[in-house]
């Protein structure tokens, strides 16, 4: 029963997992299915999108007094299924030397998987070997062929729609049927065909067909960001933790903010975890034979760095000194436009799935370009449900177009003519966002701030992060592409094209919420913290299963790879345990 605030006795668990997001949830699923007695520590509260007390799906904007506007509690809007955000009261983080990093955290069962975009892209063969290709960063200690079986199993277990296209670096998968494109997506596809920009059905972990008895099928409300009451989209809480609980092998402690990993000073092995009960503010500890970190890239690094002892003076599993370093988020840049041929559209329900039905995987060769890594493009548009911000800025748009009788209109205005403009432009807006690979650098890092603790008394992270020209030139290319697409569609861009003075419109680091790399894996214990099984070089009963182990990001979203690798690491734990090696 997930709602019971379980307080364990002095028992020793086989495994303690910290964090219930994609990595922690998958580990909980795999390990409990294998029969291990597992304890899951979650810093936030219980959450279940099928329970009316949490439900925001299918609510109307007028049910929110702010009509869905964002708040400090929900930066993605009042109905969004992420509790937390960039700025959590009592849980600060700092930055160094005038640099910038934004850190998004969700304090709830399932973590950030409750609201994510469900864009579920495998890394391709090249994404594991970037140093070999361009001499930058580090290769992974594993290749696509080693991960592919786990991608296949993740596809089957959780469900993802898409199409097999035979692309060299965007591998085929075990796909459910993809939904047909919406109108604006067909127009984008047509324009991109003329431009040579590959545009294919998107790959999202949303069930367009039944895969098991526990989960329903998508009913096309476009609201995966609110988490699905039918469990038709993947979130770790609904699809991994729930079945893990049903095995009877899993206990969950909520409101448990992990503080440090406890170790035996003689053996140097983990013995358990100390945490702060965020309700009583008491420090408590739990014992386990194996510790698995899935707290998120930065939170897991923070835990290791805060787990200092005589034996591990630089923090746990950090003899290499790499913990916290090589932090990198996806790059992001975006542009919106209005498409006059879509004025006065015929109305019909085109909600579709929560997100894009088509996307553009990276289609060019970086050897012929002035930046080393690629990006993909995500698209939006259509006759969506109005929310706070609807019609905002019409005074910059309505003067650009003649009225229905062909007479020139003046920008701004009021009254019946203005009211009609909103109707006329409804569904005529589109947008696109590039999501690219940044190069992981040693001097982009998080570390423990020597002067600051959070409200639980735990030392906080301090970030140092700068973009380089690799990312700036990539963003410039994104914007050139966006303009070509908008022009080809006969559209009008809605903002000025960003230039070098503002990093070509690059989002601030952290804003894309794909941060990875802080506890990287590798074959050389001097240059990495984890081996290729995500097991600490220094501490054999310590594993990391979130985005922290990634040596590089790929021009893909990281979640599907976190899931596949957590499955792989968890099965390795079971094998090692059965072989008496753990």
């Amino acid at each position, binding site marked *: 029963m997930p709602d019971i605030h379980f307080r364990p006795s002095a028992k020793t668990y086989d495994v303690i997992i910290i964090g219930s997001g994609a990595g922690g949830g998958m580990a909980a699923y795999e390990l409990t299915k294998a029969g291990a007695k597992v304890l899951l520590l979650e810093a936030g509260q219980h959450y279940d999108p099928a329970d009316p007390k949490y439900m*925001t799906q299918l609510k109307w904007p007028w049910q929110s007094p702010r009509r869905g506007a964002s708040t400090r509690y929900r930066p993605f809007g009042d109905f969004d299924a992420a509790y937390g955000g960039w700025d959590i009261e009592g849980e600060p983080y700092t930055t160094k030397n005038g640099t910038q990093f934004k850190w998004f955290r969700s304090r709830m069962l399932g973590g950030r998987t409750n609201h994510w975009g469900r864009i579920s892209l495998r890394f391709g063969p090249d994404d594991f070997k970037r140093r070999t290709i361009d001499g930058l960063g580090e290769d992974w200690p594993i290749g696509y062929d080693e991960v592919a079986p786990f991608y296949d199993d993740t596809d089957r277990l959780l469900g993802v729609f898409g199409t097999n296209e035979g692309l060299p670096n965007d591998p085929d998968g075990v796909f459910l049927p993809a939904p047909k494109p919406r109108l604006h997506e067909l127009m984008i596809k047509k324009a991109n065909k003329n431009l040579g920009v590959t545009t294919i059905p998107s790959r999202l972990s949303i069930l367009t067909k039944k895969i098991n008895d526990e989960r329903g099928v998508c009913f096309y409300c476009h609201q995966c960001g609110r988490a699905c009451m039918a469990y038709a989209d993947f979130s770790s809480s609904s699809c991994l933790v729930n079945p893990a609980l049903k095995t009877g092998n899993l206990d969950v402690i909520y409101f448990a903010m992990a503080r440090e990993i406890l170790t035996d000073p003689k053996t140097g092995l983990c013995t358990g975890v100390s945490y702060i009960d965020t309700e009583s503010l008491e420090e408590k500890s739990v014992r386990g034979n194996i510790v698995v970190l899935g707290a998120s890239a930065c939170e897991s690094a923070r835990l290791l760095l805060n787990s200092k002892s005589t034996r591990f003076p630089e923090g746990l599993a950090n003899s290499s000194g790499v913990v916290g370093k090589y932090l990198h988020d996806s790059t992001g840049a975006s542009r919106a436009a209005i498409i006059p041929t879509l004025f006065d559209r015929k109305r019909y329900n085109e909600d579709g799935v929560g997100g894009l039905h088509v996307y553009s995987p990276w289609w060019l060769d970086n050897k012929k370009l002035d930046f080393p890594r690629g990006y993909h493009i995500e698209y939006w548009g259509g006759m969506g449900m109005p929310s706070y911000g609807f019609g905002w800025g019409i005074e910059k748009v309505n003067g650009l177009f003649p009225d229905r009788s062909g007479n020139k209109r003046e920008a701004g205005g009021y009254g019946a003519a203005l009211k009609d403009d909103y109707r006329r432009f409804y569904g005529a807006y589109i947008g696109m966002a590039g999501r690219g690979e940044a190069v992981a650098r040693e001097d982009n890092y998080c570390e423990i701030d020597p002067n600051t603790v959070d409200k639980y008394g735990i030392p906080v992270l301090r970030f140092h992060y700068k973009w380089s020209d690799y990312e700036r030139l990539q963003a410039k290319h994104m914007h050139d592409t966006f303009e070509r697409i908008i022009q080809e569609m006969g559209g009008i861009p809605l903002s000025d094209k960003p230039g070098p003075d503002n990093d070509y419109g690059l989002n601030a680091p952290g804003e894309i919420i794909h941060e990875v790399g802080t506890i990287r894996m590798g074959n050389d214990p001097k240059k990495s913290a984890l081996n290729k099984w995500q097991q600490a070089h220094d501490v054999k009963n310590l594993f990391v299963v979130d985005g922290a182990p990634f040596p590089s990001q790929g021009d893909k979203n990281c979640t599907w790879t976190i899931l596949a690798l957590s499955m792989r690491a968890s099965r390795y734990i079971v094998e090692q345990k059965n072989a008496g090696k753990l």
Partner: protein
Amino acid sequence: MKRRDALKGISLTTLGLAGLSPQVKAAEVLDLADPDKKKEPWEPYGRTRGELERDAKLFKEQFFNKHEMKTISVLADIIIPKDAQSGSATEAGVPDFIEFMAKDQPNLQTPLRGGLLWLDTQAKRRFEKTFTDCSDAQRIEIVEDIAWPERKKTGMSQGIAFFSLMRNLTASGFFTSKMGIADLGYVGNTPNQWDGVPEEVLRQYGLDTF
């Protein structure tokens, strides 16, 4: 239409479900939260404890005074009046929405309160009375000077900025209301089957052969 009835309209077997599906269970729950039945403006809609406490506090406060609320109402109805298709901004509850937003996003408070006073100052200089006491023709005379950003009339730039903010808030409030959404013709937010763009729409855009 009850959401459960809407769900009955699509075949559950096509959704891959039989019996009492999660969707139908959810629909029964949703019926309890039918907006037509709700009494309190702050009926919970999946709130966390912190959110409930904050919203309850905001609902107890009043930011704008009666005169300011009246001015907001007059302006909102100038911006979005009743027409053949739907009612006016005040009929859709826009002034209450703006009052709430001013409390929810305190950075709106000074531009709105100050803008309302700017407007009254204009009205007093021109007609020796507040904006709401002006005749319709007098009100429109002032609005004409601040509703068209590209005219850049001397001395009016702050009024133009205020009117643009009012326009944006009014439109946001109107088109997120039940009335505004019906006016717009948004027909989603309900369980359905997506099977692509309707054939006649594909033909209209020449995409039927693409």
